């Protein structure tokens, strides 16, 4: 447990020292929120900002997770991993610490995006709804960071990983329910969107903001996260023995 916290502390310290990276990660979701959320003329809802905010929050977690996937690979390439593996600290805490850091960093960024959304006119929710929203975002964050870390460890090369990152982030976002409800999507898009894991997180958050309790999407996210974590641990173990 102490190991996990120590590994996370290192990553947080390093992150806060790189000021450009801290700010630049926020620009993209904020731009979506402002330029699309406020400006897009849509007919299906009266407050598009309230509709798109869950999508942008999940998008923030997605890009935080995907960019964080490279961290463990870099630790490996640069020789840090070998030093950590020679420590008596349980080896699993390297991986757990990394996933929790990437998720935690995403949640901090999502909080800033949420504040911006409120400032430009999104509806304020009650504390229970926020608690549930954060729980869903956390689950989704663990899912994405475990997935990204697995891919990066598997590819073992920064260029390949960043190409992969570019390749999947936009399509994943556009084929989810982030920008429009299933009812206005063309049928082919709606079909894809129903299978996109982003949609589960977005629909769940949207359901929470509407006052519901999205038991099924949360359950599906839970199962997905469990499966991906198991695969991730397997790949990590293969890398480290």
């Amino acid at each position, binding site marked *: 447990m*102490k190991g996990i916290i120590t590994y996370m502390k290192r990553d947080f310290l390093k992150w806060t020292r790189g000021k450009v990276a801290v700010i630049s990660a926020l620009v993209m979701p904020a731009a979506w929120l402002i330029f699309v959320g406020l400006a897009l003329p849509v007919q299906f809802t009266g407050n598009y900002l309230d509709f798109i905010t869950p999508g942008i929050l999940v998008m923030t977690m997605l890009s935080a997770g995907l960019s964080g996937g490279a961290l463990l690979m870099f630790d490996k390439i640069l020789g840090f991993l070998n030093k950590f593996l020679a420590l008596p600290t349980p080896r699993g805490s390297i991986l757990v610490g990394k996933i929790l850091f990437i998720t935690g960093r995403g949640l901090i960024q999502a909080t800033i995006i949420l504040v911006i959304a409120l400032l430009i006119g999104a509806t304020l929710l009650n504390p229970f709804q926020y608690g549930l929203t954060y729980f869903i975002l956390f689950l989704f964050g663990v899912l994405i960071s475990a997935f990204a870390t697995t891919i990066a460890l598997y590819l073992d090369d920064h260029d390949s990983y960043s190409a992969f990152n570019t390749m999947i982030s936009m399509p994943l976002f556009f084929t989810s329910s982030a920008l429009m409800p299933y009812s206005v999507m063309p049928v082919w898009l709606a079909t894809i969107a129903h299978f996109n894991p982003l949609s589960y997180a977005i629909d769940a958050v949207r359901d929470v903001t509407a006052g519901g309790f999205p038991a099924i999407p949360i359950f599906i996210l839970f199962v997905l996260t469990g499966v991906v974590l198991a695969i991730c641990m397997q790949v990590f173990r293969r890398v480290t023995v």
Partner: protein
Amino acid sequence: MNAIETTNLTKYYGSLCAVDHLTLSVNNEIFALLGPNGSGKTTTVLMLTTLLNPTEGSAMVCGHDVTREGEAVRKKLSYVPQDMAVDIKLTGRENVRFFADLYGVPHASDRVDEVLAIMELSDRADDLIRTYSGGMRRRLELAQALVHEPSVLFLDEPTIGLDVAARKKIWEHIRALRKKGMTIFVTTHYMDEADQFCDRVGIISKGRIAALGTPMELKALLMKDVITARIEGTFTIPAIDGILFVGQSGDEVSFTAENGREALPLLADALGKSGCIVRSLSLREPTLDDVFLQAVGPQEEPHGFEDGKFRIMLRRRK
């Protein structure tokens, strides 16, 4: 009980044998594993530090088996790989504190101050590593490694890429640690450093120990003088009483003799007669390079580099 004890330690990467039945014991000394690139030095260290499982054989560190008691072994040792991995966005103190916390060192902050002082980094402790020189970064890594007072210290090419002054300083620190009773296992391909600073040397080639002993003992395997001739053309080894052939490395051939000055003209004559042109002759005392040449032949990149085997090696390390 010896600090490090290996019995027939073997590692295969696919069909490539990186370490071949290595049997070795090291205790309270500076032991250098010496050899060219690709001779199996790093693989040996990786197995001893529990980062790689041996294919065959066993190894004990401080009485604990490296495959079965990994965590107990890791509590006793520190490992500094050759990559120089320190976080450049953190300060020296933060880097060392990080390791102290991971080891769960009691009174961490005092201990961090102490090791920083030992490595002469106290006055720069709160500067970012970005501003440190290569030698300082290496010393910081040593400070990280010392923070939990290990019994055995593994250093993989500790002086690689450093200038002469920085190298000397690193070795002085290593010697000081040895005086305090630590066992230090070093790999290097710098023969002169091993000769000067290490208590015992094992020359490794193609995964096998080719010669083992103190630098003095190893050099005593040769006679008092070494004569090196730079030649052109082919030559046959001249049969002269009291002059022994050591080996050939590129266009240089080396011989050893009890009395080098008397051997010089004899050799020049014999080599000339055997059909080659002698460009220069030099006379000096034996070095570990000569020992190496005699023990394993010329130092060269292993040729017939097999891409497939190399890929298998890389994949195994993933």
